[in-house]
């Protein structure tokens, strides 16, 4: 299937690679279908591009790259909702925000509202975590000390288009 995007022009996607957000992302309840692809070949950054709205796209990253200590529990009701049966069904993404003011190049990651994807059925949801524990704008530049061993970073290989 071919989709139109503002940033990338027309791109060809496979229907079975579509990621479904039945409730959308917060603030974007009507956009429920996205595709994921790397920023560049081998990039740690991915584009989450809306299929339904050409100019809607997010940059995302595996949050554990931004903060190796990051952890949270997926509530039972979410596991049920996304039909998660095994931990290996799950991929986690976090949305990236770029600074308006380029003189302060502080790129941040949203650790408060991570995205959980069931890679088996490709159902996804943005969670709402505890704001006392997780920042909405975690600065990525200060903390890129993650283990970036490629063998450990399997992010999204299975959910990419």
């Amino acid at each position, binding site marked *: 299937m071919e989709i139109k995007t503002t*940033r990338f022009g027309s791109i060809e996607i496979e229907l079975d690679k579509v990621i479904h957000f*039945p*409730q959308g*992302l*917060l*603030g*974007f309840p009507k956009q429920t279908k996205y595709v994921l692809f790397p*920023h*560049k070949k081998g*990039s*740690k*950054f991915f584009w989450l591009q809306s299929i339904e709205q050409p100019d*809607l*796209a*997010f*940059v995302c990253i595996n949050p554990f*790259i931004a903060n190796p200590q990051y952890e949270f529990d997926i509530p039972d*009701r979410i596991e*049920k*909702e996304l039909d998660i049966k095994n931990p290996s069904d799950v991929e986690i993404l976090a*949305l*990236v*925000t*770029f*600074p*308006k003011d*380029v003189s302060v*190049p502080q*790129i941040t990651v*949203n650790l*408060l*509202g991570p995205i959980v994807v069931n890679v088996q059925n490709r159902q996804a949801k*943005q969670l*709402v975590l505890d*704001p006392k524990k997780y920042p*909405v*704008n975690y600065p*990525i*530049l200060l903390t*890129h*000390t*993650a283990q*970036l*061993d*490629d063998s450990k970073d399997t992010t999204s290989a299975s959910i990419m288009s």
Partner: protein
Amino acid sequence: MLILTRKVGEKITIGNDIEVTVIDVKGRHVRLGIDAPNNLPVHREEVYRRILEENVRAASSVHEIKGLDELEKIIREKG
């Protein structure tokens, strides 16, 4: 807006499958118990709003992705 008074332990129902119970009131704090279907997200308004606003910011910020390639380079070098 519907405004009503409830005592501790009393409930309100919304539609057929949402129930809100007043569990406790202490000073300015009210504890509520909310029973709603799994597919119906329930959030503290301010947390929900914070994420929502950050999503909107994130979506509009990708028009200015200066720094992404530099950041990528730093990540690679660290790796």
